[in-house]
């Protein structure tokens, strides 16, 4: 089973008018693996993530996803109904801004419970039980489950998003700058939590970040993007210790010299 990738992306491309955001992006993702996509802003990494997450329709390419059932579906060619159903039940998407990824009008418990209800959960006690367990897992006191997300700190809101996205035990989680905008100490704790949860849940993750430190801490492998293209890909340690492409070398050296 694990010999097959859970996700195979080939020739993905997206342009906005004449501006090319992504061109010919191809990669594979294996179950349980964490892949970091790094690059500066405007490199196309967020567009890539939005294409994968169904927020933006790509212009070309295939996104083949192996479902739990073993069936392989090209999400680009699939009907909107099937694509949305798969994304709902088997994917998660942690957004950079918690306002995009959470419902601020309902309690933390409802936020974590919603994905369960969306896939048919109809037992209030069970939904509440799961929500409580997941809040605990992301280090939020379950006693606060009836509080609104707006009463939480930025770091807690991100952890709440993670709980909401893992509660359905997805195969893949997308994360867009999950530590962006947080204090350094809060970042470290969150990264630690993400690393632990991703390992425990056996979920594959694609993490978009401009921060090589985040990539080093979380990722097994990395893609380096520049001007919409993947310029280098490889194992994280290898790539950071011995970058081949001139742009990667520049990125790595600029971090080290700071």
């Amino acid at each position, binding site marked *: 089973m694990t010999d097959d990738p859970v996700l195979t992306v080939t020739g993905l491309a997206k342009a906005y008018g004449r501006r090319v955001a992504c061109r010919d992006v191809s990669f594979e993702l294996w179950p349980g693996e964490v892949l970091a996509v790094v690059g500066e802003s405007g490199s196309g990494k967020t567009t890539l993530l939005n294409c994968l997450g169904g927020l933006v329709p790509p212009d070309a390419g295939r996104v083949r996803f192996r479902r739990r059932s073993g069936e392989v579906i090209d999400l680009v060619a699939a009907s*909107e*109904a099937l694509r*949305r*159903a798969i994304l*709902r039940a088997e994917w998660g998407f942690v957004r950079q801004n918690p306002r995009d990824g959470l*419902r601020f009008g*309902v*309690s933390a*418990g*409802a936020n974590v*419970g*919603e*994905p369960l*209800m*969306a*896939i048919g*959960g*109809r*037992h*209030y*006690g069970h*939904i*509440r039980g799961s929500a409580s367990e997941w809040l605990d897992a992301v280090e939020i006191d379950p006693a606060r*489950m*009836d509080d609104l997300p707006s009463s939480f700190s930025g770091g807690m809101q991100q952890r709440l998003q993670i709980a909401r996205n893992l509660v359905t035990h997805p195969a893949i989680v997308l994360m867009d700058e999950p530590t962006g905008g947080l204090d350094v100490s809060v970042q470290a704790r969150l990264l630690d939590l993400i690393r632990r949860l991703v390992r425990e849940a056996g979920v594959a993750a694609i993490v978009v970040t401009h921060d090589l430190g985040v990539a080093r801490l979380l990722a097994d492998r990395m893609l380096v993007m520049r001007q919409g293209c993947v310029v280098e890909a490889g194992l994280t340690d290898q790539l950071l210790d011995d970058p081949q492409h001139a742009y990667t070398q520049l990125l790595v050296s600029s971090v080290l010299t700071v």
Partner: protein
Amino acid sequence: MTADGYNFGYLDEQTKRMIRRAILKGVAIPGYQVPFGSREMPLPYGWGTGGIQITAAVIGPGDTLKVIDQGADDTTNAVSIRNFFVRMCDVATTERTAEASIIQTRHRIPERKLAPGQILVYQVPIPEPLRWLEPRETETRKMHALREYGVMHVKLYEDISVKGRVSTAYDYPVLVNGRYIMRPSPIPKFDTPKMHRMAALQLFGAGREKRIYAVPPYTDVVPLDFEDHPFTIETWDQACALCGATTSFLDEVILDDRGRRMFVCSDTDFCQERREAGHRGDGGPNPLEEAAE
């Protein structure tokens, strides 16, 4: 010939055909909201124009019409709508639920079980059950199409966890025929179970929002709930003060400024029939004698 030289039922025949096509589509896809070219009627939007257009499209000279508002035939808006149809169609009207072939209603379903062949026409203010959760029509139509209804249960969940119970008291959302979530119009929760597998045809008209939908006879209509927090309806400790009924929806009537009150049937025909059959409540004077004076 009807009054003032207007066409039978006020609407021209082309418009009636357009509305009938929308109704047929609604019947074919129970609970699905069919957009239709709603017309301006001589009664205001929000006062039953959707129901009036449906009634106008399905009524014929042989029909007997009953119109109720809040369960009663003599509330002002019910009187006004009934007069409109008398003027525009010259049809027979009745206050007897059993005798009506078409019943147009606002906010209630009659207590008496409806029979095959009867049509119940609901006036609908806001047809979209997802409206309070998502204001955009483009998005709600997609949610219906893809059956993305999880958010409906989020509302119920939130009610239970924050308020201890589901706070929706009327216009309680239902799942129709296992497919579409539908608003039953602002009928009290008490009436919701009557919709399930009803023998009569149920038609819903929202004039201002330009939607028609339908529940064909004997269709499943199930209120949304949780397995461990099942749907419940209102109950009263009292019986109707006039007819002694214990199974009907009761209106609370304030008697004086000292807070004294009594409870009477909201469905005036149901109450009347029971009293004619000799049933008496104990809370009030004999209303038949009062009325005879």
